[in-house]
């Protein structure tokens, strides 16, 4: 199904809002107002393109920590995200138990993930198995960094999904680095998609700076999965425009020239130019969106600052499901 003009505009809005929110998180960190941030800057086009190919409220998302734009698209509010940055009560991923960007949103079928990389991949296949056993036509989108595809967990998850023809889309967000370690020291192939071939699946590569290319590839994979044609592995090639996290100094492993070169391919700028060129947005409309995003982010930060912290003793529960007080 081709994307409507309105939907495309909405996708651009999510990209822009996520970017401005993400940038402010870095500022909050520099101001000493939050302890940690891990960023999705540079990866938003792939994230938004992919997540718009699944159906909100029906399909499943099993994300990783860079997927802010995906999770915003799935309905997490900026206020909720900033609350999670600050460890405030009522943030919806974990009740402030997890570090920021360890996403979860039960109301939108976004599964909780942990910090050990690749642990989420088998869960996506397990959900896929559940869907197949129940005869449903939902699909699961799961994401991972290229470095984490070195883990056995990822191979095992793809292998199982391939054996049982499960409706799972494995999206690899290849930003070229795993903290400091470049792709060449992570795999002997040029793309994580190539690894899929050994597991019986075609590997698909897309330009991750181009939202609609990613959308098209994932939409096709989703259509296949819904029709019982099984899983897909898709690698989106992109670039991490920030250090790994607020604790990282990327000057030790990549030159400023390299980063500057990639900033020219910043997906937000690439998409903005494309939208204006294709008449999907005027320069004026873009400035209005910028204003709106700034306002939303300002409000989110104000609200989150006002929100209370959880009480220390709230940490005592819920360990076992019998204890739960109807969340």
């Amino acid at each position, binding site marked *: 199904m081709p994307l409507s003009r309105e939907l495309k505009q909405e996708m651009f809005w999510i990209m822009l809002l996520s970017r401005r929110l993400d940038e402010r998180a870095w500022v909050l960190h520099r101001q000493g107002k939050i302890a940690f941030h891990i960023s999705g800057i540079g990866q938003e086009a792939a994230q938004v393109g992919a997540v718009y190919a699944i159906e909100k409220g029906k399909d499943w998302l099993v994300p990783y920590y860079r997927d802010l734009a995906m999770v915003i698209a799935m309905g997490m509010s900026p206020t909720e995200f900033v609350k999670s940055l600050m460890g405030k009560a009522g943030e919806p991923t974990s*009740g402030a138990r997890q570090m920021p960007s360890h996403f979860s949103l039960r109301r939108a079928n976004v599964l909780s993930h942990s910090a050990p990389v690749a*642990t989420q991949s088998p869960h996506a296949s397990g959900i*896929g198995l559940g869907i197949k056993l129940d005869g449903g036509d939902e699909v699961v989108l799961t994401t991972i960094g290229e470095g984490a595809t070195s883990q056995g*967990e990822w191979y095992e998850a793809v292998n199982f999904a391939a054996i049982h023809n499960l409706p799972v889309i494995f999206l690899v967000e290849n930003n070229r680095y795993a903290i400091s370690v470049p792709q060449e020291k992570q795999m002997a192939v040029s793309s994580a998609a190539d690894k899929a071939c050994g597991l019986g699946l075609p590997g698909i590569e897309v330009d991750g700076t181009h939202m609609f290319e990613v959308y098209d590839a994932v939409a096709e994979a989703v259509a296949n999965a819904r029709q019982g044609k099984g899983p897909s592995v898709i690698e989106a090639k992109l670039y991490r425009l920030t250090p790994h996290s607020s604790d990282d100094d990327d000057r030790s492993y990549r030159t400023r020239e390299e980063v500057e070169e990639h900033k020219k391919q910043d997906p937000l700028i690439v998409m903005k130019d494309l939208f204006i060129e294709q008449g999907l947005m005027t320069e004026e409309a873009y400035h209005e969106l910028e204003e709106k995003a700034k306002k939303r982010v300002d409000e989110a930060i104000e609200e989150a600052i006002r929100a209370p912290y959880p009480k220390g003793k709230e940490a005592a529960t819920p360990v076992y499901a019998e204890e739960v007080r109807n969340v």
Partner: protein
Amino acid sequence: MSEITMVEAIRQAMDEELARDENVFVIGEDVGVRGGVFRATQGLFEKYGEDRVIDSPLAELTIVGIGIGAAVYGKRPICEIQFADFIFPAFNQIISEAAKMFYRSNGQWSVPMVIRAPYGGGIGGGLYHSQSVEAFFTQVPGLKVVIPSNPYDAKGLLKSAVRDPNPVLFFEPKKGYRLIKGEVPEDDKEYTVPIGPAKVTREGQDLTVFAYGMMHHYAMGAAEAVAKEGIDVEVVDLRTLYPVDRETILASVQKTSKALIVHEANLTGGYGAEVAATIAEWGFMNLDAPVRRLAGPDVPAVPFSHPMEEWFMINPEKIADAIRDLAAF
């Protein structure tokens, strides 16, 4: 009531749970046409089909990781690890994921799953088909750890485990699979044994032996043997190792004033240390003797050659000796 083996009790529990709830499924290596290497799933593949009795790839993290995903989706997986010795490839999924999912999502996502694994030595299995791995899991909140010692409990506890909304590790004493027989209600499909409480399985006055699984079976034999010598032993079957049933442990020590803990897993840092600490912390005033532990020696695992395996393994005679020793204190 009819007398059946441990492994048959376990098979029946799975059969009845598969029949009761269509969300229940079994996944593991060779659980399908082969019916499991110990025959715990015999006949289930034929009865419920390949979608509900799934032969997994030879990969334990797959078995558990897939189980977790299916569980959060709403299914009720029973994951079989062929030998407890091979659970370690799935360790990360159990510790980082299954145990923490509920807490880390503030109760949004629960993982109702069972991980079954045969454990224990005395079967000529050498280092890697004999281990007792419970202590790796009995310090992990979010998990429940269950070890039955007889067919009645095995069936009743496994049914409770399948119905439990949390991840339950269910370790089965493989030496007892066919050796231990017992009465199990034939027609009462609704009987279960609750996860949590330990059980006083033999009343006595002189001292208490705390044990579980195969060692509980042996402890009962040892208690009978020393009874002839006039030593009146109480035996407590711990059954659910985690969460710990402190009340039953402390009540028994209050009564007998002496405690011996028996397990075949290595001594140091083993489950007995927790029981001993529980008694030291809350039952100290009731003690007439130091708490004793009889456990597997601190070598990496059970050796293959028979004399060396005998040296490693706890048996009823070794337990009887430890009882005599403690009784004489």
